[in-house]
């Protein structure tokens, strides 16, 4: 078998079998899923028992039948009953609670009380206060004697969504959403940063381990140092890809499973209710409200979806993969060279700084790029190889000219070749040097050794 693939295999298998890897890989999706699922769980977990609520109004019957029943609650309007009659006995009579509306309700905000033995769910309270507010507004408006009030009310029920239309040089307009582009830029920039740091430093630790355990001399009497270095870099990259693939798949699986257990009934009901409330000839005020809320949500999702489709996904994915691989190779070879030059991890500090600075700078510029993707700082940082993997990936969702991408990518490729060549030279000498503290001057000498 080819030596390099043997090395890749060892690097991969020993890492993937580690307990810490397995635990991290399996646990992280649960943590991520928790972030998605917990809010849904909390929402769906609210009190779903059917509630019968007695409504008592002080003095008048202005609010009779104003609060529509919901699937969880029924409102029974009691006349000829005073609060004191029922206040202590409502639960024996089969009521969940008593809603008391005082005659001051139109003027005093806290003139409505819901008396119950348990904490009522927020949804129920919202439903009650929305219905009452609507009715009070309607009655106040009625006091102005406006003709065709109902039609006017319906027509002023409005909803505004801002769509951004970007016009390219050919004059074609596209519907885009800066939100999507920013989200993409943010996620990819941050992912790159994490990947490069996590796995690049694993390469470094691996090299230091081989050097301090002195196994390296045995191995390089069988294979070329550059094979060992590249085998390690590639093996760890595969570990990273495996971990990410598992994270993504598991997270998706967990989220879908959990949501299919909890959410569908709710969403399905909403969808089913939608045509009804829209189709009603004379919708009640509350019904119309609910209907528009749902439709506005729908249009929002539709427009997000439309602008997502308008992104050049092929290019974005290609760029992400390209910059991930090249960025990783670039930094991992630098990390490998550092690992070979030191005797232990504490000595890495002095060499880590110049490698860390471009990564962090790249991340900062990438964040700025999202505010202003066309600035000259963003431009230069997306061309210069050390920062381009992060900054260019963040810029690409905002339509970067093709020549800039081509320039950035070709510079990257040239840099990688040079970088791996240099790292291999440092590595070859460094792994056999023990004891003395390495300086930059020393490393320069190693670079100029021949053969």
């Amino acid at each position, binding site marked *: *078998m080819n*030596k390099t693939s*043997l*090395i890749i295999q*060892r690097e991969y298998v*020993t890492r993937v079998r*580690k307990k810490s890897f397995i635990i991290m890989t399996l646990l992280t999706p649960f943590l991520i899923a928790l972030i998605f699922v917990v809010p849904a769980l909390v929402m769906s977990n609210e009190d779903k028992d059917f509630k019968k609520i007695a409504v008592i109004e002080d003095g008048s019957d202005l609010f009779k039948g104003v609060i529509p029943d919901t699937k969880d609650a029924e409102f029974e309007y009691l006349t000829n009953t005073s609060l004191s009659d029922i206040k202590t006995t409502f639960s024996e009579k089969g009521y969940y609670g008593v809603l008391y509306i005082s005659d001051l309700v139109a003027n005093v905000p806290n003139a409505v009380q819901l008396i119950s033995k348990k904490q009522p769910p927020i949804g129920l309270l919202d439903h009650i206060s929305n219905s009452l507010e609507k009715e009070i507004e309607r009655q106040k408006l009625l006091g102005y004697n406006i003709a065709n009030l109902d039609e006017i009310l319906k027509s002023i029920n409005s909803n505004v969504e801002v769509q951004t239309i970007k016009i390219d040089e050919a004059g074609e307009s596209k519907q885009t959403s800066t939100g999507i582009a920013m989200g993409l830029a943010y996620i990819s920039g941050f992912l790159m940063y994490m990947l490069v740091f996590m796995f690049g430093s694993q390469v470094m630790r691996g090299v230091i*381990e*081989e050097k*301090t*355990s*002195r*196994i*390296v*001399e*045995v*191995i*390089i*009497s*069988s*294979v070329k140092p550059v094979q060992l270095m590249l085998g390690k870099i590639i093996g760890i990259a595969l570990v990273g890809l495996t971990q990410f693939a598992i994270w993504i798949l598991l997270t998706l699986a967990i989220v879908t499973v959990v949501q299919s257990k909890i959410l569908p009934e709710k969403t399905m009901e909403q969808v089913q209710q939608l045509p009804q409330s829209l189709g009603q000839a004379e919708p009640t005020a509350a019904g119309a409200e609910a209907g528009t809320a749902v439709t506005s949500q729908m249009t929002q999702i539709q427009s997000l979806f439309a602008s997502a489709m308008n992104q050049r996904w092929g290019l974005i994915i290609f760029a992400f993969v390209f910059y991930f691989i090249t960025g990783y190779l670039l930094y991992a070879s630098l990390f490998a060279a550092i690992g070979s030059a030191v005797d232990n991890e504490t000595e890495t500090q002095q060499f880590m700084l110049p490698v860390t600075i471009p990564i962090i700078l790249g991340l900062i510029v990438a964040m700025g790029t999202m505010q202003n993707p066309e600035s000259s700082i963003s431009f230069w940082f997306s061309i210069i190889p050390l920062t381009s993997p992060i900054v260019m990936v963040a810029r690409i969702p905002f339509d970067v000219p093709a020549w800039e991408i081509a320039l950035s990518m070709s510079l990257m490729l040239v840099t990688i070749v040079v970088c791996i060549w240099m790292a291999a030279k440092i590595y070859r000498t460094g792994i*056999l040097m*023990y004891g003395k503290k390495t300086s930059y001057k020393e490393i320069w*000498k190693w670079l100029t050794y021949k*053969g």
Partner: protein
Amino acid sequence: MPLFEALNVTKRFATQTALDGVSISVPEQSIYGLLGPNGAGKTTLIRIINQITAPDSGTVMLNGRPIRPEDIYKIGYLPEERGLYKKMKVGEQALYLAQLKGLSRTEAMRRLKYWFKKLEITDWWGKKVEELSKGMQQKVQFATTVLHEPQLLIFDEPFTGFDPINVKLIKDEILFLREKGATIIFATHNMGSVEELCDNITLINKAKTILEGRVDTIRQEWAGNEFDIVFDGEVTPSGNAHFSVIRSQFEKGRSTVRIKAADTHDTNEIIRSMTAAGTVIAFNPALPSMNDIFIRVVETKNSEAAKN
């Protein structure tokens, strides 16, 4: 024909010369001692043989022709600074190293079983290296070095870290390997084992060869006019015109005396003086130990260098 030859090998690093025109010639199926003080250039020479580094000038020959990259499969190397992957299991690690040396997995497995049994380490197959004592790790490493049955074996200080029983075990294995046809280069500071094992030696000091040849010849050459005499009881002969006493030691009812004969001496005269002094049990010419030769040669060279 020598199996291995280094001809006029020179290697310079930025500030120092590690090897300055060193030549060695290792006959087939022999054990060749590579001796020298710390920092003399032994490790550099070994790394050149292993093609880890290349010489600045000079040639390295294996089987009568310049060494080639694929020759690494014919060489087995046990470095002085030994190590294994600490977190990896012994068996897996041995398999990995064997495969790197070009063995197929099944072949490596078969040979590993044989060697693990022979070195009495079969029980450790599934253990992690970090759970093993230093001596155990050395045995594992020894097995992986010889596994691919190389023509040329290079052992750099193979006995450090072993108890006397395991030193004997490894010595026997080295002799066994030579019997089976391997040629061995053996770098060490342990002069006792040089006398015991080596057929030929080269002594390198400050990047240059200062002594080389067959071990027995060298010892004969360096034998001065010294004799060891053993007496029954405590006896201390006094020196005369024929000899002087170098040291005398009384232990367990016997005296061991080392004398240095005068340049022109009569051995019979000396023996007569000895029998006069006490009951002689043994009378032998004293061969210098390799240790003495090593120290004397290196010190002479260094003081010569200091004078110039």
